[in-house]
């Protein structure tokens, strides 16, 4: 339109400049780290087989337990060194019976099942830990399954007594729906980030499914704790506090089913994010020079990025609401006769090429490069272009929204409950 008079909102430009500068800085840092460690990203498959226990905590998992156990039995690992412990955390369905029946079919394998009264995931894990002497252990949720080489790829990363845990690479299994696709890209970027964090000695979350721990460490430091329903975050922070190492095996794939309902995803994220804040508060002494990259760079930048996302979310919502109101008022002035207004006036001159646009474009390109690397590192073969477009448009909004609600829950001091469905783990 040719007479429109606009006000320049400098706060918006400033916000974009700060965001892009921060984004380019952290991205460049991460790219440098990956570049420096490019030859050591993977390790050879192990030919040494220490004893490993895999715990499967379940609550009403009768539909998925067989698939999970089958994937564990298919693991390429010395049979007599692999122990599988199923803990039925007070299910009201036939999880226990189905598991028992399954065990009968595989008498040559070391599988045990226990049933206990419901107490939450951490109690199920501890219940199993008290009953194993395996050198290493991990957990696998009943809605996740593992690549057959995953364990053989993880074990070589326990190259020193200082390595207390090794994380796998989590992927969303065949994402199809809108929300699954978003989670698919999010997990893919997570694979890249976790490797970077490992190379900075700064992994601060050991994902629930198939992170493998040194059993001695967990037992000697007091087993699992309730930890605000995010025991995996607490465990990672505990390891960091003890100045031990968490490694990442980037090609040890674990597949999990993406959440398909907006509400269950929201519930999961509120639990994750508020759990993260509470656990980090419990381990606030990690913010110190003593903890190097984690205390000085990774944890502070995690909170800074969340702050930026929340501020930009509010800014965009307020700005777009004002624009929408103006737009409606403008249309009202022409009696909403939108068909007699030329919407398609296009001129190359009017393509935005100012500094804000160029700097935003640069950070977008850096982001795309990181995604390309993430795709390569995660071994993903399928095209992700469509998923990425959805992710780009929606994710930051959802991310900001989840964080705002998580913070509000914390302010209201509302207890966030652990979802019983294991795919909310």
């Amino acid at each position, binding site marked *: *339109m*040719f*007479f*429109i*008079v*606009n*006000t*320049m909102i400098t706060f918006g430009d400033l916000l974009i400049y700060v965001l*892009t*500068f921060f984004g*380019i*800085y952290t991205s*460049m*840092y991460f790219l*440098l780290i990956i570049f420096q460690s490019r030859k050591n990203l993977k390790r050879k498959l192990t030919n040494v087989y220490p004893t490993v226990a895999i715990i499967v905590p379940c609550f009403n998992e009768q539909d998925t337990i067989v698939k999970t156990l089958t994937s564990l039995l298919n693991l390429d690992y010395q049979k007599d060194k692999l122990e599988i412990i199923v803990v039925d955390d007070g299910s009201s369905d036939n999880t226990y019976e189905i598991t028992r029946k399954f065990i009968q079919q595989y008498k040559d394998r070391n599988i045990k099942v226990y049933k206990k009264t419901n107490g939450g995931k951490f109690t199920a894990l501890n219940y199993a830990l008290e009953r194993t002497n395996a050198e290493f252990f991990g957990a696998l949720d009943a809605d996740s399954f593992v690549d057959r080489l995953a364990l053989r790829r993880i074990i070589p990363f326990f190259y020193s007594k*200082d390595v207390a845990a090794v994380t796998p690479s989590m992927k969303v299994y065949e994402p199809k729906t809108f929300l699954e696709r978003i989670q698919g890209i999010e997990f893919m970027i997570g694979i890249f980030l976790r490797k970077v964090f490992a*190379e*900075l*000695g*700064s992994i601060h979350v050991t994902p629930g499914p198939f992170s493998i721990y040194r059993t001695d460490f967990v037992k000697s430091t007091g087993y699992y704790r309730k930890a605000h329903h995010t025991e995996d975050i607490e465990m990672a922070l505990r390891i960091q506090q003890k*100045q031990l*190492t968490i490694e990442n095996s980037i090609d040890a794939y674990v597949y999990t089913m993406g959440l398909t309902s907006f509400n269950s995803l929201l519930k999961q994220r509120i639990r994750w994010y508020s759990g993260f804040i509470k656990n980090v508060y419990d381990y606030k002494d990690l913010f110190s*020079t003593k*903890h*190097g*990259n*984690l*205390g*000085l*760079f990774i944890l502070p930048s995690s909170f800074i990025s969340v702050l930026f996302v929340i501020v930009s979310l509010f800014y965009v919502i307020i700005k777009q609401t004002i624009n929408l109101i*103006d737009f409606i*008022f*403008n*249309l*009202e*002035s*022409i*009696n909403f*006769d939108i068909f*007699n*207004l*030329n919407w398609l*006036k296009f*001129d190359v*001159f*009017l393509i*935005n*090429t*100012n*500094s*804000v*646009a*160029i*700097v935003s*474009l*640069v950070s977008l390109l850096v982001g795309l490069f990181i995604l390309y690397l993430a795709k390569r590192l995660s071994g993903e073969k399928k095209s992700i272009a469509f998923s990425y477009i959805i992710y780009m448009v929606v994710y930051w909004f959802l991310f900001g929204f989840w964080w705002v609600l998580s913070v509000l829950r914390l302010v209201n001091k509302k207890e966030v409950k652990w979802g019983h469905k294991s795919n909310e783990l």
Partner: protein
Amino acid sequence: MDSRKNFSIQKSLLILFFTIIIFFSGIYIGKLGDAAKMNSLNDFYDDLKIETLSTEIEFQLMENSICETNDFSIISDRLNDLSIKLNYMENNLGFDDERVIRLKKYYSILEMKHWLLANKQIKQCGIATTINNSIILYFYANGNNCDDCDRQGTVLSYVKENYPDMKIYSFDINLDLPSITALRKIYNVSDVTPSLIINNQYHEGYLDATDFKEFIENQN
């Protein structure tokens, strides 16, 4: 302790250095883009100036046949085009950017020249005023000083779309230009924006599309 945990000030500063280079290169490229656009706008203006002067001379030479010239509406469309681009640059560089202000002054003078020629053509050719060949002078103010200017702009875009031969000339009342001051004096244009002079008749304040059409219809 794992040596990878150690925070490297050297590495951080190195990355900071490269980030600053990339970031400010981006800003610089953006500024170069703005400058290139301003240059192309200046060229555009120069072309338009030549065309307007040429039409003016054409009018003087063909005293009795100016009614037949077609160049007039072409220049009018190009003036609108310049207006859109100027508006874009204004939003990009700011209302107080000296390059924008200067070009805007030139543009306003060109508009006035065109307006004078349009009036001359109507008088000499005895063209009856209809809504389609109406001549509108639109006085606006930039920034937050005029709540209704945005809406008035939409209304004028809309009527121009429906009546392509209508001639609309817009003037920023805050532009320090003696010819705009003179024009305002002639029509007693107040400081209220938006204000309109529709076929030589002054109207203070905003007019929506319906009222705007009614205003012209009542004139006839």
